[in-house]
């Protein structure tokens, strides 16, 4: 019976993930996958086991408690905080694998006659990868949430220190396999925790989505490893599926930023950037409320480039309002979505969807770059690095090579921004000093509010 259920749940997990790679069926895919998961959990509870004890209370209480907690978090969380939330959840998954492997190893130690080296090796690997995923995800969360200290954790010779830690972990694992003493186990866990921090520390905040996706695949691998130990095919399958999917997703995200995974892990973004503040900057022009409104009002085509600034100011709905006012006056309005707009790929689409922006209004990078030539005004709201011409012109820029939106090819550009401060990558943007660019300072929400009322008065 439970074998059939496991089979069905494995099928549902694979099929659900498959459906999730197409926008039309993604929602159904997620539901199928969650039903699959539910079935798997149910089967694990009812399956007959050798030496089974009725510890059901130990299963039901944490399971129901945390399901409610998970549901509440998912319901309350702001859509802008999705990346942070995913990294926290992933950290919990990693912690779960650590606790589980630890408990399982302790159990093996208690019965030396059934001690099997290959099982212990698999468990230690799971312990190590889970620990790295745990602390790494927590640091990734801190970086995404903008905690200052989290950007400054890097030690001198970080990469050498990392290699030393890695060798220490291998040595203590070797010692543990030869002599199963719990103190070695604690040592492995502590070293792996620290290694997880070191692994993420040199990576810049802008690259966090890539890291989270990578850590997510790590958690998948630990699930698969523990699946081998428990002889549970669904665990193995689900874990490997996530491991492989996470890896591909990581690579796809790297491609979207035109960086290699190695380059991301070594931390190309965070190290450079501060040295180039002396570059000549020229003058910037500010635009007044009424001028801006008139300019938009008499355009025939406007493209909006939303960025993270729009999202944190929660101004998506105002954006939609302005879009409607303009459209009522026969202005064509589109949104150009950079693949990494927001905090991670696809994040901006989620945010605009929340504000009910029509799907067909969203255009992707290549199409947008063709359309800028025929655009009157490109409005950049809270985006910076994705419209930085240095990515094409300046080979010394940390952004160099990243595919960007060539907004300056439109007749004019207006940048909505709080101040002249640098973007996430920490570099100044020469776009602001271009002749056809104007600045419109202020918090995205207040600015758009002013603009919206100006527009309605016209």
């Amino acid at each position, binding site marked *: 019976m439970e074998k059939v259920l496991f089979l069905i749940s494995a099928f549902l997990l694979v099929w659900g993930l498959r459906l999730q790679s197409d926008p039309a069926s993604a929602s159904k895919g997620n539901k199928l996958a969650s039903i699959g998961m539910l079935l798997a959990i149910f089967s694990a509870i009812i399956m007959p086991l050798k030496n089974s004890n009725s510890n059901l209370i130990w299963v039901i209480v944490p399971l129901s408690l945390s399901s409610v907690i998970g549901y509440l978090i998912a319901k309350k969380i702001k859509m802008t905080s999705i990346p942070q939330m995913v990294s926290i959840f992933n950290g919990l998954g990693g912690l779960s694998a650590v606790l589980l492997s630890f408990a399982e190893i302790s159990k093996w130690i208690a019965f030396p006659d059934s001690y099997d080296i290959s099982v212990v090796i698999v468990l230690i690997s799971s312990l190590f990868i889970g620990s790295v995923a745990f602390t790494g995800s927590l640091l990734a969360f801190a970086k995404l949430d903008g905690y200052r200290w989290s950007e400054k954790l890097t030690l001198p010779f970080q990469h050498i220190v990392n290699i030393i830690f890695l060798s220490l972990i291998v040595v203590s694992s070797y010692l543990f396999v030869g002599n199963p003493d719990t103190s070695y186990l604690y040592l492995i866990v502590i070293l792996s925790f620290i290694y997880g921090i070191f692994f993420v520390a040199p990576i810049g905040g802008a690259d966090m989505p890539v890291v989270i996706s990578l850590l997510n695949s790590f958690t998948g691998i630990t699930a698969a490893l523990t699946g081998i130990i428990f002889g549970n*095919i669904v665990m193995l399958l689900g874990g490997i599926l996530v491991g492989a999917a996470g890896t591909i997703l990581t690579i*796809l995200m790297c491609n979207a930023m035109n960086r290699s995974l190695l380059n991301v892990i070594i931390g190309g973004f965070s190290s450079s950037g501060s040295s180039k503040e002396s570059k000549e900057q020229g003058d910037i022009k500010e635009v007044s409320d009424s001028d801006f409104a008139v300019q938009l009002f008499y355009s025939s085509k406007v493209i909006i480039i939303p960025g993270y600034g729009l999202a944190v100011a929660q101004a998506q709905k105002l954006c939609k309002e302005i879009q409607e006012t303009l459209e009522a006056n026969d202005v064509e309005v589109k949104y150009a979505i950079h693949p990494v707009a927001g905090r991670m790929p696809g994040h901006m689409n989620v945010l605009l969807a929340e504000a009910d922006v029509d799907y067909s209004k969203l255009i992707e990078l290549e199409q947008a770059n063709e359309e800028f030539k025929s655009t009157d005004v490109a409005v950049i709201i809270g985006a910076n690095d994705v419209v930085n011409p240095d990515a094409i012109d300046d080979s010394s820029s940390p952004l160099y090579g990243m595919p960007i939106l060539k907004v300056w090819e439109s007749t004019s550009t207006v940048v909505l921004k709080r101040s002249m401060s640098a973007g996430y990558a920490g570099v100044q943007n020469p776009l602001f000093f271009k002749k056809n660019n104007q600045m419109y300072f202020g918090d995205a929400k207040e600015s758009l509010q002013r603009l919206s009322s100006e527009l309605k008065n016209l």
Partner: protein
Amino acid sequence: MNEILNFLIENEILIYLLLFTILLGFEVISKVPSVLHTPLMSGANAISGIVILGAIILIRTTEPDNYITLILASMALFVGSINVSGGFFVTNRMLEMFNKKKKS
């Protein structure tokens, strides 16, 4: 070394499965548009919480007086299933927003 070799031979079917699943995972994801990266990441993250099955099995096979293992395993179950339920619910919330808009 011999023990590792034996382990591989004993688990031959599992290892075949491992290889094919890796390919399957690559294949399933490789064509996904960047619009879906965020929901997919949180959806996949929820699936990685499948590790809690191990915790359930461990709890069920532990002697009722072995409190250390029981506590460790139910803590694993607790944090792991926050990952599972939170992940699925939030992914659903995101994807529903895509849907809602398409119907209107």
